């Protein structure tokens, strides 16, 4: 799915912020990306979601050498990737509904066709009754949930999330990872940058630890995965490949207290 060979990245004429990265993330894998602030996590994800091009080395994405792709070929590839940006990047002039629907709309789908999917997502993130609200009136955690909903609403082949739990409490962080895990179980390749070592080790099949532009790849042992998680994930996949009907309760009352305005 994703292959890096001796990849380096520098911004402008500065020093390399990523050097000699080599790894292979298989289709259907679940990878956590950890490292201190400034280690280059966002930079690495940008190479994956095609916001930056490597200064050197080979980046292969979905069996395509990214460097050789023409400008016309990039959009189609990008539409297979769901992205949760570290800074959310919600469009402040669009309602929550339209923000979540954006990738579907841009893909040429009609509102009547995606209406139900989007409402389901809104329901799932606990903001169904605020579909017409604008992002600026939401709390940080609520905005983050909208950003996540937008990333997964297209059921992408590859999900890239940059600190998707940075603004939510531990329980919700866990729930969000559970959703990603459930998506992973039905085939989505997942790459998540996180500061949360515990979540990284709990959910990640492998961990890329970045420090100062250098990387270390470690496999987590299956024993790390708590039984509850395994059971929860198993349960969701048993129900069929429907990521949006997961038994995830992001909007249970305990959490509403901290996040609704």
């Amino acid at each position, binding site marked *: 799915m994703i292959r890096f060979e001796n990849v380096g990245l520098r911004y402008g004429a500065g020093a390399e912020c990523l050097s000699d990265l080599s790894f292979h993330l298989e289709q259907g894998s679940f990878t956590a990306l950890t490292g201190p602030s400034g280690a280059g996590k966002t930079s690495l994800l940008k190479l994956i979601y*095609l916001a930056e091009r490597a200064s050197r080395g080979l980046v292969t994405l979905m069996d395509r050498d990214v460097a050789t792709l023409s400008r016309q070929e990039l*959009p189609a590839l990008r539409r297979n990737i769901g992205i949760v940006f570290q800074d959310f990047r919600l469009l402040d002039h669009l309602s929550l509904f339209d923000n979540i629907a954006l990738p579907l*709309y841009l893909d040429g789908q009609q*509102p009547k066709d995606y209406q139900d999917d989007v409402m389901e997502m809104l329901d799932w993130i606990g903001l169904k009754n605020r579909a017409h609200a604008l992002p600026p009136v939401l709390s940080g955690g609520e905005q983050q949930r909208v950003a996540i909903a937008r990333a997964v609403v297209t059921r992408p082949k590859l999900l890239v999330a940059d600190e998707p739990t940075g603004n939510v409490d531990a329980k919700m962080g866990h729930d969000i990872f559970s959703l990603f895990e459930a998506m992973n179980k039905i085939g989505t390749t997942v790459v998540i940058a996180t500061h949360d070592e515990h979540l990284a080790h709990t959910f990640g099949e492998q961990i890329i630890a970045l420090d100062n532009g250098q990387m270390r790849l470690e496999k987590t042992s299956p024993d790390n995965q708590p039984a509850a998680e395994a059971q929860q994930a198993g349960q969701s996949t048993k129900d069929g490949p429907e990521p949006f009907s997961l038994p995830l309760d992001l909007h249970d009352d305990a959490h509403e207290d901290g996040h609704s305005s």
Partner: protein
Amino acid sequence: MTQKTHTPTLFFMHDQATALPLVMAVMGFLATLALIGGLALNTMARDWARGLQGTLTVEITAEALDAYKAEHGSALTPAVVTLLEAHPAIGAATPLTDEAMAALLAPWFPDAATVTALPLPQLIDVKLSHPDKMDVAALNTQLAALHPEIRADDYQALIAKQVRLARSLSWLAVGLIGLVGFATAMIISFATRTSFAAHRPTVDLVHLLGTDDKKVIGMFGRHFLIHTLSGGTFGMGIAALVAVLLARNTALGVDSLWAGLGTIGLCLVVGTPLIMAMLAHFMARREVRHQLAAMV
């Protein structure tokens, strides 16, 4: 929950809602006025130039006739006619007969005998074969060599000057239209760049979500096309109104304004906003394509 079936508005919610069409209205006004003026002047010049095909009149004073006869013993008129007919731009030179003179003056002097007795100048009717080659000043120098008191009237020269003026003015109008077009292109280019920068976060996002450049280029192009078309049409309407009012309140007259414009001219006037809009469309798309090319 109310059903939502609208499509999201990605760009241009607030910006330039009135500013751009207003500027384009001014541009449309200037371009249309210059176009109408230029076309009207061009037609005028053509009509006047047609008048140049006419005749030239050479006048020999009575004194000159007498003095020449006394000095040379022969009549001056045939000598002048010979000189005139040798001129490359002149087809024929016909002296007015006494009877013709009498007929001309009949309203004032009904008695032909009185007329003949008067010390009248001799007039020679000159038909030009090549009006465009006629240099009246040079001809006058030649005539003065025969006698200082022979003059070709410079009425034709005056008209020729007016024709040249009208033609220069209509070229000036063409230049003005060109300038307006250039200014329009620059304004649209600048406005597109500003708008693109203002919408940069949205552009970046939709780009990363896999939107084709074509779609973004199309959205910007359409925006500037519509704003230029609406503004330009308004400006064109005002300019046409001004032109009609001007024509009605001056010697020109509305009918001759329409005649001056002609069908093609009228089509050009009506098409001005369309041409402006197409120019804006092209410039906006060019600018956005250029900006997008800088993105990964």
